[in-house]
Structures are given as structure tokens and as C-alpha cells.
């Protein structure tokens, strides 16, 4: 990947116009979606009295929490200059395999016959996510294959394994730990919301204030330069891919718990939404740009649009068209308010 600089060859001899915070620039871009979100909220409040109720807003948060974790994972991977499409099938397969390993092999439960102890379900699930991420890393880094196509192949493979292992049926017999996470409320907010929130806060802090996190930007911005600066680029990228798999598996646990079962097509088509949220939120597909806060705003915006359309009882036949047009309008809006060209 040869990166050429695309500098706006400074038109003016940069006057020292005030020494500002180094993160200011990022912060400004971060806020790009805020006007669009505010407009949405105002419209929502006008259209439906339910919209601004605590109940509705916390429900929106809960509905978006699994998506948020996927977006967190994808955002980090994109910032580091890579791609991961396979997250969309990891979110279903990791819990399915973990559950199949712990439940009995009856026709109802679809276990694999191992019947490992129930408490292992969550650690196993995360481990499976890590393994998928690790395998992606192996193919991308050791074989130097394109991340897009490797993870697309992995997406198809892992989805296939999901259907194969589950025999195509939904799994209804969930371990109690899954149910707990999908169900429990901590301080009025669903556990899954807390988990997603904490993951984002940690992510934002690490990517803003730690060398390890900043190295993602360096790698995504210019991998040769990052190598030259002493960053172990392969190790970092690998870590991020593994972490991405783990986050997807965690998202799978939360989503499974929320829905009470895993269908054989869980997560299908979700990766589009994941990319939409990340890119709307300012993450560049070319790597090295964007912030996790921006990505989070992207998730929220998509969730609010969806919620609003439901509250307005939009005719199902025109749901998609209206949804798409709103997304395009929001894009143009955020472009016009920040004035920065997108990538």
C-alpha cells in the first residue's frame, strides 16, 4: 500500500494563529454528527410524544448495544488501516459454537455432545471470537492477502459453519449467563448498555491517551512510517484483529441474551450497518482517521432514525426508501456543517 501524501499544499504561509489543544481538530470533526442528531431529536419530539421518554431512549440504547460493540471493533480495525467483514458472522457463530459445546446433544438443544460445564460458555465464546480474528490476522499478515477479501471469505466460511453446527435451527436453550447479560438491568439501564458504554469509554481513552492506541492511527496513516518509528505494526494489527473478534463475540452474547435465542441468520447483513455507522461517524476507509466518539455518534444516529421511523409507523413498503433518503440527508447535513471533505 503506497501512500502518497495528499497535502493541501498550504496556500498561506501558516501564520501562528494561536496555539490550540492538539485534540481540538479531532474533537471538531467528532462533533460533525451532533447537528444531525439534534435535528433528529427535535423532529422526534415533535412527531411522537413517546420519543423523548426515558423508556424509549433507554430501549434505543439497548437495541444498539450489540451494534455499538461491532462498530467499536470495526472502527479500531479501520483506523489501523485494515478491514473486517467477518465480524458479521462472528457475532452469530461464536455464541452458537460455545453453546453447542456446553448444552446436551438432544434434538432440542443441538449440542455437540461435549457437554462442558455451563460456566465455560462465555469464556469459550470470547475465545472463539479471538480465534477467528487471529486466523484473519494470519492470512492477512503472513500471507499478505487483502484484508477485504480474506475477511469476506471468512464471513462466508464462518456463516457456513454457523449453519452447519446449528443444523440451521435456532438455538433456544441458552446458558444462564447469556440470559443474565441480555436481561439484567444495572441501575435502570440494561447490562448490555453498560458493557457497550464501558467498552467505548475504555476504547476512547486508549485511542486518545495511550501510545498503544495512538499507534493505530500511525499504522493506518502510513504503515511504513509507523514501522520506521519503531512500532511493531504486525503485532499491533494482529492484536486489533483479535480484539475485534472478541468484541464481536461479546456482541453476540449480548444480542443472544436480548433476543433469547440465536437464529441461523443472526447478524446477516449487519456489516453494512456497521460500516455505515462507522463511516457516517467519520472513520475513513483508508485508515488513520476518525475517532471512536464519532463512530458512537454514528451508531446513535442510525438507531434514532430507525426508532423514529417505527414510531411514525411508516408504511413498510416505503420504509427502506425513507430510511435511505434520511441517511443521505444526514450525510449532506454533516458535510455542510463541518465543511470537511469526506473520504
Amino acid at each position, binding site marked *: 500500500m503506497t501512500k502518497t501524501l495528499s497535502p493541501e499544499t498550504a496556500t498561506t504561509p501558516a501564520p501562528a494563529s494561536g496555539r490550540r489543544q492538539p485534540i481540538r481538530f479531532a474533537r471538531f470533526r467528532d462533533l460533525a454528527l451532533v447537528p444531525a442528531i439534534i435535528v433528529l431529536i427535535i423532529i422526534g419530539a415533535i412527531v*411522537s410524544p*413517546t420519543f423523548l*421518554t426515558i*423508556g*424509549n431512549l433507554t*430501549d434505543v440504547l*439497548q*437495541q444498539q448495544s450489540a451494534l455499538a460493540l461491532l462498530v467499536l471493533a470495526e472502527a479500531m480495525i479501520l483506523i489501523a488501516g485494515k478491514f473486517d467483514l467477518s465480524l458479521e458472522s462472528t457475532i452469530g457463530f461464536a455464541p452458537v459454537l460455545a453453546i453447542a459445546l456446553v448444552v446436551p446433544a*438432544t*434434538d*432440542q438443544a443441538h449440542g455437540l455432545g461435549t457437554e462442558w460445564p455451563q460456566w465455560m460458555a462465555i469464556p469459550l465464546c470470547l475465545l472463539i471470537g479471538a480465534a477467528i480474528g487471529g486466523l484473519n490476522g494470519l492470512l492477512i499478515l503472513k500471507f499478505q492477502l487483502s484484508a477485504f477479501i480474506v475477511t469476506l471469505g471468512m464471513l462466508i466460511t464462518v456463516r457456513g459453519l454457523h*449453519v452447519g453446527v446449528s*443444523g*440451521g*435451527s*435456532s438455538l*433456544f436453550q441458552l446458558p444462564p449467563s447469556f440470559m443474565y447479560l*441480555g*436481561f439484567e438491568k444495572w441501575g435502570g439501564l440494561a447490562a448490555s448498555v453498560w458493557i457497550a458504554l464501558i467498552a467505548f469509554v475504555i476504547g476512547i481513552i486508549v485511542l486518545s491517551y495511550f501510545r498503544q492506541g495512538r499507534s493505530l492511527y500511525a499504522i493506518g496513516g502510513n504503515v511504513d512510517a509507523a514501522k520506521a518509528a519503531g512500532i511493531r505494526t504486525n503485532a499491533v494489527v494482529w492484536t486489533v484483529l483479535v480484539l475485534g473478534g472478541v468484541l464481536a463475540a461479546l456482541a453476540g452474547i449480548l*444480542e443472544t441474551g*436480548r*433476543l*433469547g*435465542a440465536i*437464529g*441461523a*441468520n*443472526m447478524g*446477516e447483513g449487519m456489516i453494512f450497518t456497521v460500516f455505515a455507522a462507522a463511516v457516517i461517524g467519520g472513520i475513513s476507509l483508508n485508515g488513520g482517521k476518525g475517532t471512536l466518539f464519532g463512530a458512537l455518534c454514528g451508531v446513535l444516529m442510525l438507531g434514532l432514525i*430507525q*426508532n423514529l421511523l*417505527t*414510531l411514525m*409507523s411508516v408504511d*413498510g*413498503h416505503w*420504509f427502506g426508501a425513507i430510511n435511505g433518503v434520511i441517511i443521505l440527508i444526514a450525510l449532506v447535513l454533516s458535510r455542510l456543517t463541518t465543511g470537511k471533505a469526506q473520504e
Partner: protein
Amino acid sequence: ESSPGSAPGGAAGDPNAKVGVDFPRADSDFWNSYIQYVPRFAKELNVNMMDPTNSQNKVETLVANVQTLTGQGAKAIVMAPQDTGAIATTLQRLEQQKIPVVTVDTRPDNGKVYMVVRADNKAYGEKACKFLGDKLGGKGKVVEFQGALSSINGRDRSEAFASCMKQNYPGVTVFEEPTDWEGGKASAALQTRLNQHPDIKGIYMQAGGAFLAPTLQVLRSTNHLLPPDDPNHIFIVSNDGIPQELASIRKGEIDATVSQPADMYAKWALYYAKAALEGKTFQPGPTDHGSTIVDVGNGNLEDQLPAPLVTKDNVDDKALWGNQIGQ
């Protein structure tokens, strides 16, 4: 046997010729059961079935699979096109090749088939409507999880449900939620709707496999999952009749489901495929297996299998496919 006769032209074929079977998808509970029943009945009915193909819910794949099956010598085809329009050309081609086709679950919009084996999806919608309408006493709010709008079965159920409600229970308000058969979307829509209208009284879900667990999960977490005798109980009608739905009916979590006969689909599809090879023909009218063959126009016949409404009263009926499968 309803009314077997001999094929016109008398060219009775070889009853042991190969029968090609294409499954529509491998990732849904209902079809999964169908997939399990097919080889069982093929053995039982002595059908020379080729290795089945699976079109992964894509009509292009279905078309390619049919080409491959006939290329390998299939003399009759059993398929379940989920997109009923886009197989028109394929049916035309098969007709030219004199290969009889039995379609399962869906009736093609266009083109000649030997027999359609399905239950009447419009009837599903009506049964659900009547059940809910009666339980609610003709008034109240009902949430309906629609399938994908591009699916004929989903559309039939939606239309029948809507027109039945309008006609018979004008006091009932229906919220139609498009879900694309996705549990996650149904769950979100139900949460939102319950916030907006805490007095929801009924739910109609067009597919139990996809919506059962998410719905129960939402109701449970919002304390809406109340026993049937509670005045605030939300009445739920499902569709498909998978074992989990039957279990939920027993527990009183949901109230009814329309059992879509996966076993009968498999059995009668293979039966008619073999009959076609034997050169039999059929006439409209009642059959010996509790169904009716109707002429659906175009010269096409449809064996409309019964799809019983399952409630607490008949949930333990051994004949229900959902009660056979986990045994």
C-alpha cells in the same frame, strides 16, 4: 388416492426415474424440519431421489441448481421457490423439456406446474386474525410482525390479516412492523411500540422461528408476560408450529400458532413427483388425506393441505409435526 387416471398421450414414464429436489434454504427452523423429512419420505414412498441441492434463499441459485439437476438426468423436480416470479422462465424451460414440477409452499405466479403443495397462507392470516379478534372482543391494539415484504407468503399473511381485521374487527388497531424476518428488528419494534402504547393487547407473528424468543424476551423484561387469565395478558398468535411454539403454548406464554405442516409438505411433494413420473393425473376435489385439490387457474392444481390452528386445547395432538420432530 383422489382421482388417478392415465397421462394424456399415454406416455407413462418410468416411476423409478430420478427426482431432483431443491431445498430453499438451510437457515430457518421450518425449512430445516422439511429438509429432515424429505429423505425419510423418499425412502418410505420409494422415490428415486437424487442428492438434493440447496438454493440458499437465492432465486439465481435455484435456477442454476435446476439446470444442474436436469443436466444430471432429473426427470421430475420438487422445488420451493421463495421468489415466485423469477422462476417463470425456468418453469417454461422445464415444460419444454417435459419435466414435471411440484412446487412446495409457494405457488408460482406464472408458468405450468404439475402440482402445488402448500397450505393456504391467506388462511393463516385469517385464522390469526379471527383468533385475536375474538380474544380481544373486537377492540384494542395489535402488533403484527410482518415477514419480508418481498416474500409471497409473508405478503399473503399480511394482506389476509389486514383485510380480515378491517372487515370483521374494525375496532382493532393494527401496527404493522416490517422485519425482514429478523428477530432483532421485531424485538426493537415491539419495545418501541410498548413504550408508545402500553395497552397493546395482541401480537401476531408471522414466523415463530424468528420472532418467538425475542418477543417473549421483551415481554418478560417489561413485565408484560402475564398468564392467560390475567386481565392484562397480551394474546399472541404465532405461525409455523415449531416445537418451541408448542412448548410456549403449554406454558401459557403464547396462545396459539398455525401449524404449517412441514411433514406433509415433504410427503405429498414427493408423492406427487412420483405420481407425475407414473403418468397419473389429478382432478380438483377433496383428497383422501384431509386436503382439497383446487384449480388455481392456468391449468395448475394446488393441493391445499390443512394447517390447523394450535391452541392449548390441541397442543398435545400427536399428529402435529412439531410434536413428532423432537421425539
